[in-house]
């Protein structure tokens, strides 16, 4: 019984690493959950006070989930651009659902799920492609919402996720996308072979003019 009093928030602590990086966990999420636990413990055996403490603590945690994408660590002002994009996205989604039907809500839901998956994956496997800031060639990665998508599992999640999202919205193009994805695999295979041979001559690629990269 006493164990139950100080344990709320345990599940939240398990799911929080899916959304946040270690810095945010240490400075924001854990203190929020510590407040929840201490407040519930302070409520003692008073059932009403415990319920109220839990409600306030859980509300604070889910509020964090909502505001975290817009939390700015470096600026004094709230991140207005991100907020604007979020509001714009919400309005477009609402209008789409109203005009085209409720099923279209699946598309933003799938997009959100893929974005969360990519961010979660890169929190655990940061991109290790070292690119000097003054490199004369472009980074081969896709910059997707400030996340570098490299040629790894993160890239695979990006491609499969994109195909799934477009297929949900436009089922007619599914076979075209599938054929395109298979063709892209062959092109990628050719590129890898070409880069492997080039690396044999100049493995640093330092002397390669930018136009020869592709």
């Amino acid at each position, binding site marked *: 019984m006493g164990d139950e009093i*100080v344990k709320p928030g345990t599940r939240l602590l398990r799911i929080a690493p899916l959304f946040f990086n270690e810095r945010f966990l240490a*400075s924001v999420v854990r203190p929020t959950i510590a407040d929840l636990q201490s407040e519930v413990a302070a409520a003692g055996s008073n059932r009403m006070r415990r319920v109220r403490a839990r409600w306030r603590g859980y509300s*604070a945690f889910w509020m964090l989930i909502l505001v975290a994408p817009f939390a700015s660590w470096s600026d004094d002002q709230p991140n207005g651009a991100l907020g604007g994009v979020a509001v714009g996205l919400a309005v477009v989604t609402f209008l789409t659902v109203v005009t085209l039907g409720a099923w279209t809500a699946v598309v933003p839901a799938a997009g959100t799920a893929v974005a969360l998956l990519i961010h979660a994956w890169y929190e655990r496997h940061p991109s290790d492609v070292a690119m000097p800031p003054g490199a004369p060639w472009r980074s081969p990665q896709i910059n997707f919402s400030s996340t570098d998508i490299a040629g790894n599992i993160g890239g695979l999640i990006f491609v499969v996720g994109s195909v799934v999202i477009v297929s949900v919205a436009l089922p007619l193009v599914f076979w075209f996308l599938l054929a395109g994805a298979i063709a892209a695999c062959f092109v990628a295979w050719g590129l890898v072979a070409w880069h492997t041979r080039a690396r044999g001559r100049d493995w640093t690629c330092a002397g390669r003019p930018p136009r020869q990269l592709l």
Partner: protein
Amino acid sequence: MLPKKERLILELLVGEGPMYGLQLVERSDGALKRGTVYVTLGRMESKGLVESEQETPAPGAIGLPRRIYRPTLLGERTLRAWMAFTRELAWGTKS
């Protein structure tokens, strides 16, 4: 420029001493919210305006230890400078 919430947190910490995040929320009369106070504190910590440490857990406590926040010297000086600036500004507007 010292944002309103950061100024309020500094005023509370300088005036009343080190506090937990929840105490700051309670003393702010609704100006600080539970869901966002640690975001603001985290930002202030990265600016060097406040510092924090984990509380020493009481014997037998099982929950996570809370963080206690106090102003840094830079935070205190920033608050004093900001208050002096706003006083000067108010005086300049009146005269």
